[in-house]
């Protein structure tokens, strides 16, 4: 009973905050509400017994996306006043059509098919062969390894996309991350103490991901956040995007994963097939490299396109 009341409160809050994200007049207020929304959503995922997703949402929704959006909102503040609002008939039509879509999807939830469709037994069968204990990691690296490889490729492509938005003269320059303007502030203290803890947590997330909720992406996000913190506080310079070491770090994870996949042709008879008995060590190697690459890629995605050539 107590659990159900908790869920009702949680859902009511989630919907209230989501409504504020959409209806708020000021963009800044909407962005802060979106950060709160991300935090609440992480709790929802815990209640749905999807701890892996809760970890991802807590790291991305509450942390890095919030940072990106807050930065954009403060830069775009003066453009808000000029925006023209949409006409009332258009709003009404949109509201009616959106309500219809909501009703349709709600009907699917309320009247599910009689036979429950699940892939859990299939996924578990493959999990035993891989030696992993976390079923979600098993799905990501065994059952659907190809999708996971493509997902990492998407991250790299998105980074190339962000970089290519820089003016030509700044290609390969330094990302325009918003750096805190006062050196030796109390923020410096935070970015001296927090990153060592964060790096340990990041490695823990990746390591525990084999058997418990966690994994390369959650670990990589923590690493990215810590790197960004060190750069924002000014302890570490924002690196130039034409640095070869940096670019190598971005692709080392996907490259190793791809190489393991190609070796599968020779040793196990198929792309991304693991040789019997070697599945777990190979997956751990791929995940370790991916954690590093994801950390660097997410950090660079959040840092934005290059905006200048040389350190001031």
């Amino acid at each position, binding site marked *: 009973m107590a659990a159900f009341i908790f869920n009702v409160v949680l859902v009511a809050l989630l919907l209230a905050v989501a409504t504020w994200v959409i209806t708020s007049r000021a963009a800044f207020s909407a962005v802060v509400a979106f950060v709160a929304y991300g935090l609440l959503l992480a709790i929802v995922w815990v209640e749905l017994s999807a701890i892996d997703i809760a970890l991802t949402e807590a790291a991305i929704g509450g942390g890095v996306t919030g940072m990106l959006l807050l930065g954009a909102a403060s830069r775009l503040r003066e453009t808000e006043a000029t925006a023209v609002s949409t006409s009332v008939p258009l709003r009404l039509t949109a509201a009616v059509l959106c309500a219809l879509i909501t009703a349709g999807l709600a009907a699917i939830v309320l009247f599910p098919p009689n036979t429950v469709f699940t892939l859990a037994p299939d996924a578990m069968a493959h999990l035993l062969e891989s030696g992993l204990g976390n079923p979600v990691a098993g799905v990501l690296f065994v059952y659907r390894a190809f999708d996971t490889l493509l997902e990492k490729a998407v991250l790299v492509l998105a980074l190339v996309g962000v970089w290519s938005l820089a003016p030509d003269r700044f290609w390969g320059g330094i990302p325009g991350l918003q750096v805190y303007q006062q050196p030796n*502030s*109390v*923020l410096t*203290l*935070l970015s001296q*103490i*927090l990153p060592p*803890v964060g790096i340990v947590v990041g490695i823990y997330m990746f390591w525990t991901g084999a058997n418990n909720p966690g994994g390369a992406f959650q670990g990589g996000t923590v690493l990215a956040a810590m790197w960004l913190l060190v750069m924002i506080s000014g302890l570490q310079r924002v690196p130039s995007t034409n640095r070869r070491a940096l670019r190598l770090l971005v692709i080392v994870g996907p490259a190793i994963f791809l190489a393991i996949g190609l070796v599968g042709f020779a040793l196990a008879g198929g792309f991304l097939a693991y040789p019997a008995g070697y599945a777990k060590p190979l997956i751990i190697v791929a995940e370790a490299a991916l954690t590093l690459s994801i950390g660097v890629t997410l950090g660079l995605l959040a840092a934005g396109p290059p905006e200048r050539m040389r350190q001031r």
Partner: protein
Amino acid sequence: MTAALNIFTVLAVSAGTFFFLAGTVGLLRFPNTLTRLHALTKADNVGLGLVVFGLLPLVEWPFGALKLIAVWLLVQLSGSIIAQLIAIIVRREES
């Protein structure tokens, strides 16, 4: 022994919950930004601290307990520093 520990948990968690309530009331009712910041940090430090304290007998010893304490210390650290940074911004805008 178990009953005593349970009573301890109930008392500490209830007290922690009370501080969260107090923090919210402060955030909503206090007259200006700096005093509201004051209310926020009390909830951060004491509220979560008491909740963690109360949960200690329920978790696995020693690593589960250490993790809980680590969570509390992390929130302490970042909470206090964020409070400082927000206060700096507020004072600069007021002057």
